[in-house]
C-alpha cells in the first residue's frame, strides 16, 4: 500500500494516466493555408507567355472572357523609350524581329502551328500606344501563316477590362 501511494499521487495531476502523444493540428493547418495562399498568389495558367504590356482599356468593352480553346499568345512589345514603336514580337518563348524577315519567320512559325492545330486562335497583345502601322503587318503575317496551312486565321485582340 505504501508503494501504491506515490503512483496514485502522480496520477492526480494526469487523472487518466501519463501524458499521451497527440498531433498538434494548429501548425499543420497554418502550413496548409499558407500553401493555399501561396498557390493562389503565384500560380499562372497559360499566361506564361503574357509579357507585361499596357493593353488597351476600352470603355464598356463588348469583349469576351478567355476560353480554353487552343491558343498562342503573340505579344507586340514596344520600345522602352518610345512605346509607339515596336521593339520585338514575342510568342511562346520565341522572339521575332519586327522587320520583313522577322515577320516572314513568324508567318512560317505560325503556319506550322496552324497545321498541327487548325482551330488555333492567336491572342494578339499589343501595347495601347503602339501605332497601327506596326500592328497591321503582324495581322497580315498571321493571315499569311494561316494561308500557308490552308486554314482561317482567327485572332483574339487582347484588352484589359478596367
Amino acid at each position, binding site marked *: 500500500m505504501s508503494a501504491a501511494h506515490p503512483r496514485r499521487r502522480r496520477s492526480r495531476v494526469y487523472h487518466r494516466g501519463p501524458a499521451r502523444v497527440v498531433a498538434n493540428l494548429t501548425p499543420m493547418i497554418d502550413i496548409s493555408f499558407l500553401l493555399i495562399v501561396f498557390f*493562389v498568389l503565384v500560380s499562372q495558367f497559360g499566361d506564361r507567355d503574357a509579357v507585361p504590356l499596357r493593353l488597351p482599356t476600352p470603355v464598356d468593352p463588348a469583349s469576351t472572357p478567355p476560353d480554353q480553346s487552343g491558343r498562342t499568345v503573340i505579344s507586340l512589345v514596344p520600345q522602352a523609350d518610345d512605346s509607339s514603336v515596336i521593339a520585338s514580337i514575342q510568342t511562346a518563348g520565341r522572339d521575332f524581329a519586327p522587320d520583313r524577315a522577322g515577320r516572314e519567320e513568324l508567318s512560317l512559325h505560325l503556319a506550322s502551328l496552324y497545321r498541327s492545330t487548325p482551330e488555333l486562335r492567336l491572342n494578339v497583345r499589343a501595347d495601347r500606344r503602339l*501605332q497601327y502601322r506596326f500592328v497591321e503587318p503582324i495581322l497580315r503575317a498571321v493571315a499569311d501563316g494561316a494561308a500557308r496551312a490552308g486554314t482561317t486565321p482567327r485572332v483574339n485582340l487582347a484588352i*484589359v477590362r478596367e
Partner: protein
Amino acid sequence: MTRGRLDRVTSTMTDGPDSFIIDDLPSDDQAEKRLLKAHSPRRARRREARLSRPIMALAMTPMIDVVFQLLVYFLVTTNFASHEEFFRLDLPRVESATAENEPSAELASPPDADPFALDREPIRVLVTSTGAESNDYRLEIVGPLPQPESFEALRRVLRDRLVDPQTGAGIYQSNHPVMLEPSPATTWEHSVEAFNAAVRAGYTNVIFQALP
C-alpha cells in the same frame, strides 16, 4: 472518492474501537478490498493498459480532405491574368502568301452574281490619332452619315442604322461589314476603341483595313 475511502480506512485502523462507525459505511470493506485488488500487479497492468489508450482524438482525415479540396479548388479556378479579355476577329483569308501583288480573286465578280443583290459596300470609319492620350482622336464615317465626335457617338450612329428585327427599321444588317481604317500613326488603343464601338453597336463583321 477513492481517496476519501482510503483515508477513512486508514483512520479506523489508527483511531481504535471508539470511532468504530464503519458499520454505517458498509462500502468501506468493499473499498478496502477493491483497493487491495486494484493494486495487485495484474490489475494494475490491466488498468494502465486501459488508461494509456487514447480516449478522444480528432479525426484528421476529413480535415485533410477538405483542405486539399480547397487547395485544388483555388488552383483550378483562380485566374491571375490581369483580367484580360478578347475581341474575336477573323482575319480575311488570303489565298496564298505570295499573292499580294496579284489581282485578288475576290474582287472579280462571280459569274452567278445576283444582279439585285444589295450593295455590300462596307461602312468605312476613319480613325486618326491626334495625340498620345486617350481623348486625342478624330473619327470620320465615309458617306452621308452624321459624323461622330466620340467613340460613344460612333456607337450610337452605327446602332441607329442597324436593322431592328422587331420593326424592320434601319439600313444595315448586323452582318454588314464595318471597315475600320486607322491611319498608320493611329495608336492601337484608338483602333481597338473603334472596334469596340462597332461591336457594341451590334455589328458582327468588323474588320481592319490593310495598309497599302
